[in-house]
């Protein structure tokens, strides 16, 4: 699993990367939106954990561009202070999940694993349709998923069970 963390708070994101590493999730780190897009062009990650408020390019703009150019990459928004409108927009752009800082590290690790699993399932389902000769469906499956709705609901149910 290839995970990219995008955040301009260097201390925060370095520690986050260390902690995720301890939980078996190796990550690469970049510090702004443009760097993230450059990284994606060179080596496509499976999951991106994306901050919204960053210098230069706003995280939502990164998500908007990724949803057009690399829709298979699953994006988990992790923001210091997003608004309801941001959350709605992220949902519309099919972000996998939307979390607020500070968040529990194990919860974040779960969401990243969930996003990766979802991506694998989408890819496998698309492959199955392609094998069956249903290329249009396969193409749609590969690019058009509704992760936030589906996965978000699953996790919400899990959270309820925990409490």
């Amino acid at each position, binding site marked *: 699993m290839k995970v990219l963390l995008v955040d301009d708070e260097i201390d*925060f994101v370095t520690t986050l990367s260390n902690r995720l590493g301890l939980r078996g999730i190796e990550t690469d780190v970049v510090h702004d939106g443009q760097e993230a897009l450059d990284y994606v062009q060179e080596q496509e990650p499976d999951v991106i954990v994306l901050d919204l408020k960053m210098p230069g390019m706003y995280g939502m703009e990164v998500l908007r561009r990724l949803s057009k150019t690399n829709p298979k990459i699953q994006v988990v928004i992790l923001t210091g202070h997003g*608004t309801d409108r941001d959350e709605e927009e992220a949902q519309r752009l099919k972000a996998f999940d939307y979390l607020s*800082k500070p968040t529990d590290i194990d919860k974040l690790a779960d969401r990243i694993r969930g996003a990766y699993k979802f991506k694998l399932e989408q890819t496998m389902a698309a492959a199955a349709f392609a094998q069956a000769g249903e290329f249009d469906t396969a193409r749609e499956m590969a690019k058009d998923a509704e992760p936030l709705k589906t996965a978000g609901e699953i996790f919400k149910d899990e959270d309820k069970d925990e409490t």
Partner: protein
Amino acid sequence: MGETQAGQATEQTSMVQRTGDVEVDLGLRIAQLQVLSRALTNVAHDIQNHLAAINESAGWMGDLLNLKNKHRFGWIGRFFKRGQRDRLDTTPFFGEIDTIQKQVVHGSTSNRRLGDFAHRLEETQSVFSGNKALEEIRDVLLREAAEKGIHMEIKLANGTTMIETDPPGFQLAVFCGVEQVMEGLESGDRLVLEAEVREGRFHVRLTSARPAESLGLPSREPEGRDFSRTIVEELGGQIWKQSGDGNHITTLAFPLAAAGT
């Protein structure tokens, strides 16, 4: 033109002038609030990032301590034990880390509420949840109420509470309304903020055992109208006071958003 007519004309001109002044005053105050709110939103965002960094650093310390404990009993533990007669009890460290993280959560929750309140002030005419906006106002006034010894309660409305109005105007009117009720209260008193959807309007009822000083922030002019009344009416709503059964109630009513918006 007779003397009486001239007098009426002068009076009308003066009323128009006063109304114009109130509108300018109101616009100015809202503009001031919007500038302040932008600054506040940015500060709140920065604080949230600092809290997140503290939280991760504390968590990382916990992770490292856990790692050390785990290794103490595994094969790597042999290296840790070498030359170590008195083992360090890590329990108090975990206790302190837990305290740091709990405080971060408290600080972050308060900061997020402040940020939400400030952010709403930046918006212009829009559709938003009356319940949520009322909760934000309650949150930013909780500390002041606690300092005065006032017990503040909130009862939210059932069902959809989407209202369509100017958010800074809504916040200013309700905020000033609550402030004025609190002005008249004493330590140990109770103030209930209650929301209800009734007759196509979102009602905010402020109930206390003592009467409010006025209907929201009073006008600067002695004969002027209460500021909250001016705002609420500009937003297409109404504001009134009533008393009975030992309760004094200030009600602010705002138009609900059209269905489907």
